[in-house]
């Protein structure tokens, strides 16, 4: 009771100094909260990008690099040229070195694993049997490349169409890109489906597709049984078809072999977040040469303003907040020592009255901690304000992410072959990157508030302990001499 009365009165007496110290601490703590809020906003944005890219609940993806044809003549390629003086475009399609002439009106429609090499059908099962693996599901991420050979020589060569297709196991639709999708119309794929397809709503809208319509992939018609809405991030597949049908229709461009029972991507869910690194290591040993990517690996590959902001928040912001805090703590400590120096006669009197040094120190500490807590509360307010300002002024962040499921750039690529004919040829190697835009939503977390309270108390204790140490060392006789 006496302690609190004394504390309150002293703080009131030195109101201006207390406000100055409190504001210094508030500034530091507010900055820490703002940086933490911004950092958490960036992390949320990253998580959103990665979750969209990866699928909900997927911890790791397993792929292998596409095989390079040992003999340049193997695999499948085609060439179409608009040569001068010819009666029409000419072309040829070659499979494992055997070429066939193309004529106007011919349609080339191939479903190929363009980005990744193939993994055996049993690889997913092997991974699923690993300790600490909860689930492992194989998908076949393909690109349907379609071009119609023109009949006349007039005008530019036609542009090929590329459609991204994901062959999914109807029994395991909760892994990979499909896990992020929501069924807007129709139904999901079932195990009984054969030539059935789920179509992305944006793709359906741009191609005027509706339930019951058909899409053609590798010259095979599929009936649309469902329309999906999917997150924009990482360009999700346009069409999902049953895995077995996809395997039967697709070819590996490197070998020109059908992917009868193969997959090219395995989505793995670890038993727990703590097991991810271990599982990643185990899979790398199980399938030598496989690329096992975790969300952390992907996060490192994210570029664009999202990555820059993350860097800014984590590096510059963190250090700025620490520097301001150190300055605030130092100023608070110096001012508290100065205040104790001015109160030497007062503490000398209390010692003459028989007060323990510890009691005097706790009085000084109490006053400092009281100031610190007021500063902390103001700092929390400043933190909320800082976060609100960030949310108000922060532009949407762009993230360029390596696509795990999106359409392959290329497929058909147009090339200019010197002064001669304009040519188009099949290009199986492609980079898959997508740029997405995500809003940054900074927020004040409970952890940030707890940290603020701890910092406020720590700041108060630090300042108070310097002042208290000085007060404790006072000899009562020397302190009283200061009065005279």
């Amino acid at each position, binding site marked *: 009771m*006496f302690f609190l009365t004394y504390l309150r009165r*002293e703080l009131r007496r030195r109101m201006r100094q207390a406000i100055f110290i409190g504001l210094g601490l508030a500034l530091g703590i507010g900055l820490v909260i703002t940086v933490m809020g911004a950092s958490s906003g960036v992390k949320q944005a990253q998580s959103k990008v990665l979750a969209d890219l990866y699928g909900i609940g997927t911890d790791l993806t397993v792929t292998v690099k596409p095989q390079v044809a040992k003999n340049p003549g193997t695999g499948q390629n085609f060439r179409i040229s608009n040569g001068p003086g010819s009666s029409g475009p000419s072309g040829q399609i070659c499979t494992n070195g055997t070429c066939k002439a193309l004529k106007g009106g011919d349609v080339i429609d191939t479903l190929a694993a363009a980005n990744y090499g193939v993994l055996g059908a049993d690889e997913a099962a092997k991974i699923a049997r690993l300790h600490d693996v909860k689930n492992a599901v194989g998908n076949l991420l393909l690109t349907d490349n379609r071009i119609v050979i023109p009949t006349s020589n007039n005008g530019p060569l036609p542009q090929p169409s590329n459609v991204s297709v994901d062959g999914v196991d109807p029994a395991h639709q909760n892994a990979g890109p499909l896990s992020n999708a929501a069924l807007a119309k129709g139904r999901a794929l079932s195990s009984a489906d054969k030539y059935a397809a789920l179509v992305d709503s944006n793709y359906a809208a741009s191609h005027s597709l509706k339930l019951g319509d058909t899409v053609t992939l590798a010259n095979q018609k599929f009936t649309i049984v469902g329309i999906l809405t999917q997150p924009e991030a990482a360009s999700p597949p346009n069409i999902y078809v049953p895995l077995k049908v996809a395997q039967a229709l697709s070819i590996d461009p490197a070998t020109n072999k059908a992917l009868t029972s193969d997959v090219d991507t395995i989505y793995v869910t670890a038993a727990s977040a703590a097991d991810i690194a271990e599982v990643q290591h185990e899979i790398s040993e199980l399938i030598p040469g496989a690329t096992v990517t975790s969300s952390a690996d992907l996060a490192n590959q994210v570029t664009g303003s999202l990555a820059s902001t993350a860097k800014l928040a984590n590096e510059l912001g963190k250090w700025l907040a620490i520097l301001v805090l150190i300055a605030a703590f130092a100023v608070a400590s110096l001012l508290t020592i100065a205040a104790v120096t001015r109160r030497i*006669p007062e503490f000398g009197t209390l010692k*003459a009255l028989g007060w323990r040094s510890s009691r005097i120190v706790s009085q000084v500490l109490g006053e400092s901690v009281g100031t610190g807590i007021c500063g902390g509360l103001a700092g929390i307010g400043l933190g909320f304000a800082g976060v609100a300002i960030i949310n108000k002024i922060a532009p949407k962040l762009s993230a360029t992410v390596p696509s795990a499921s999106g359409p392959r750039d290329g497929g058909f690529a147009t090339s200019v072959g010197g002064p001669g004919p304009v040519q188009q040829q099949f290009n199986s190697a492609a980079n898959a990157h997508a740029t997405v835009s995500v809003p940054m939503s900074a927020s004040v977390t409970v952890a940030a508030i707890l940290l603020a309270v701890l910092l406020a108390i720590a700041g108060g204790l630090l300042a108070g302990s310097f002042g208290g140490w000085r007060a404790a060392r006072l000899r*009562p*006789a020397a302190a*009283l001499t200061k009065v005279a």
Partner: protein
Amino acid sequence: MDNTIYRLSGVSKIYRKGNREIPAVRNLDLDIREGEWLAIQGKTGHGKTTLLQLLGGLDHPTHGDIQFAGTDPFAREVRAGSFGFIFQTFNLIPTLSAQENVEAALIPLKIHLSERRQRVLAALESVGLADRAQHLPSELSGGQQQRVAIARALVKDPKVLLADEPTGNLDEDTRDEIIGLIESLWRERGLTLILVSHDSSVVRRAQRIGVMSKGRLTIRQDTRTL
């Protein structure tokens, strides 16, 4: 020690400033009886206050021995319970009311709040300031502030009252009023009073008068037997 409350043997206090030694009290032998009023007179800087601080356990002698009623006068507990101090500049805590300033002297004694309040009010009443209990020092006159300081010194019922120039900051009328109050409290309570002053009109009321000169104490007058 019959009724001797203090026995000082060969007490010296030497301050050091760099390599220089400044003796404030030199080789002092002194007995003080329980309930006596000893006044110490002397010029500024001749060791009066230092001697008072040694007697109050606020500082240790450089040489010699101080015995106090069979206890260690330098122990904090002894200081908290047995010595009451009155200072020239009152030394009240400016943010605390008269009542709280007096209460501050009871904090180290760990007395229950209700008893503490009773004793504080009784002490303020004994110095005639019960009606000013809630006033801050800045709202009191110099004489009233010194009365609060006297109440603070007496509230714990000390054995010894140590007063360092208690009237030094007061005008003549207030000085007489305060010294009269101290004298009456000394008589009523049977305190041992050790009072330092350079004012002869204050000092001459004491039973025994000692004069400090260059750190040495000479007893000039002793009316204890009268």
